[in-house]
């Protein structure tokens, strides 16, 4: 049986088309990211009411939660892009997956760091061996493993495939991180946002958080596209269109 894929899916596989397409998208995403992040930060840090228990220290949630969500989504994207690259032999998918790894690792570090800063005033310790914290640390190790494996190969094609296999294998860890808070009774609070239920926070507190999450995703899109574009240029450096791009720059 043949599955018919939409036309844009094939077009994405062409490096030149991908370069032009993301070039057109970049300014929009950059503007959206700057706007959302500024609005969310000012709203969350200045106007949102302070927590009745934690006072102002809860405000780090506006950085911590978006970065934690993003660190996991980024891994999912990396694995899915790797799978697409393996199945449809699409070079661009491998480029996207390769661009995800360093971004995801740095966002995971950010999530762990903001969590530690938040943990000190509320739990009285920088680090506790709690299920979710440990799972997040494991996610960081997975990213580091992917980056290390990717840089160990000299041949780009096999590096792409090997990292795709590894990121797919590591995917089993994602549900463990996601549900660690529900499966183990630990110090960490349960998920802040769920699709099905109303948030436990008042709207003045979760609305800016939602804005921040969207802002983080837009920021992620900007960084991801920028990295992928540079990688595309490097991989296609022998082709004519890249020469033209460089000349016209």
């Amino acid at each position, binding site marked *: 049986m043949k599955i018919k894929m939409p036309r844009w899916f094939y077009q994405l596989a062409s490096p030149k088309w991908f370069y032009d397409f993301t070039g057109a998208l970049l300014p929009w995403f950059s503007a959206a990211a700057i706007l959302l992040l500024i609005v969310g930060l000012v709203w969350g840090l200045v106007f949102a009411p302070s927590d009745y228990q934690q006072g102002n220290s809860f405000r780090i949630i506006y950085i911590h939660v978006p970065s934690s969500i993003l660190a996991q989504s980024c891994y999912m994207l990396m694995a899915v892009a790797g799978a697409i690259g*393996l199945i449809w032999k699409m070079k661009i998918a491998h480029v996207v997956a390769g661009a995800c790894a360093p971004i995801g690792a740095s966002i995971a570090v950010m999530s762990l760091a903001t969590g530690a800063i938040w943990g000190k005033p509320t739990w009285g310790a920088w680090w506790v061996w709690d299920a979710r914290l*440990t799972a997040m640390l*494991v996610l960081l*190790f*997975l990213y*580091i*493993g992917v980056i*290390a*494996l990717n840089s*160990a*190969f000299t*041949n780009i*094609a*096999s590096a792409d*495939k*090997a990292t795709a*296999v*590894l990121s*797919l*294998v*590591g995917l*089993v*860890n994602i549900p*463990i991180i996601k549900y660690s808070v529900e499966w183990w009774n630990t110090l960490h609070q349960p998920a802040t946002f769920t699709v099905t239920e109303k948030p436990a926070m008042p709207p003045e507190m979760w609305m800016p958080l939602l804005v921040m999450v969207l802002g983080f995703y837009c920021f992620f899109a900007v960084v991801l596209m920028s990295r992928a574009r540079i990688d595309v240029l490097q991989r296609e450096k022998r082709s004519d269109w890249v020469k033209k791009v460089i000349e016209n720059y």
Partner: protein
Amino acid sequence: MSFFFAALKRDLLLVFRHRNDIINPLAFFLMVAVLFPLGVSPDPAFLSEVASGVIWVAALLACLLSVDGIFRSDYEDGSLEQMLVSPEPLLVIVMAKVLSHWLVSGFCLAIISPLVAMMFFLPEQGYPALILSLLLGTPTLSLMGAIGAGLTVALRRGGVLISLLVLPLYIPVLIFGAGTVQAGSMGLPIQGYLALLGAILVFSLMLAPFAIAAALKISVRS
């Protein structure tokens, strides 16, 4: 099936001709375990408390150390390439290799683990939990380790990299394995833990062979 046994027999025969391959993981296992009383504290009460974790960590490191060689010699003398181009299914070869690795590492570790448990003053009621958890948990370690070994077999410095790739994947097995021993030594029921270890094993038995085969194809063609 007869092909599976032929492949298994070949691998085991290769191991028996180099006896070091059997002794090394076991000696490593014992040495890592010995470092803890020397480095932390020889107090029997303390040792019996940490025994479950220490034995499992030592077993995990011993598996990790030996898994690097699972495909290496075959890759270096070219027989791995012949296996890939042979008409026999690669999954069968992979399974035979993983099984032979487990028999040499995990199975032997489970057999000698009561010795270490005795040195660590583990309560005697915990011995069945220790042996059973190692028997159920170490095959998963061999399977997951073989994925890492397949990915790094063509790389010159695969040894360091493999620990980076595989250790994060070992963590769930470590948690439930050590949990089994902890529960068993306190006289609590261990069926739940064993069921979880078994579930992880079944899950990795289903998926890991495909990942190992894919990894080998990528490595050999590069």
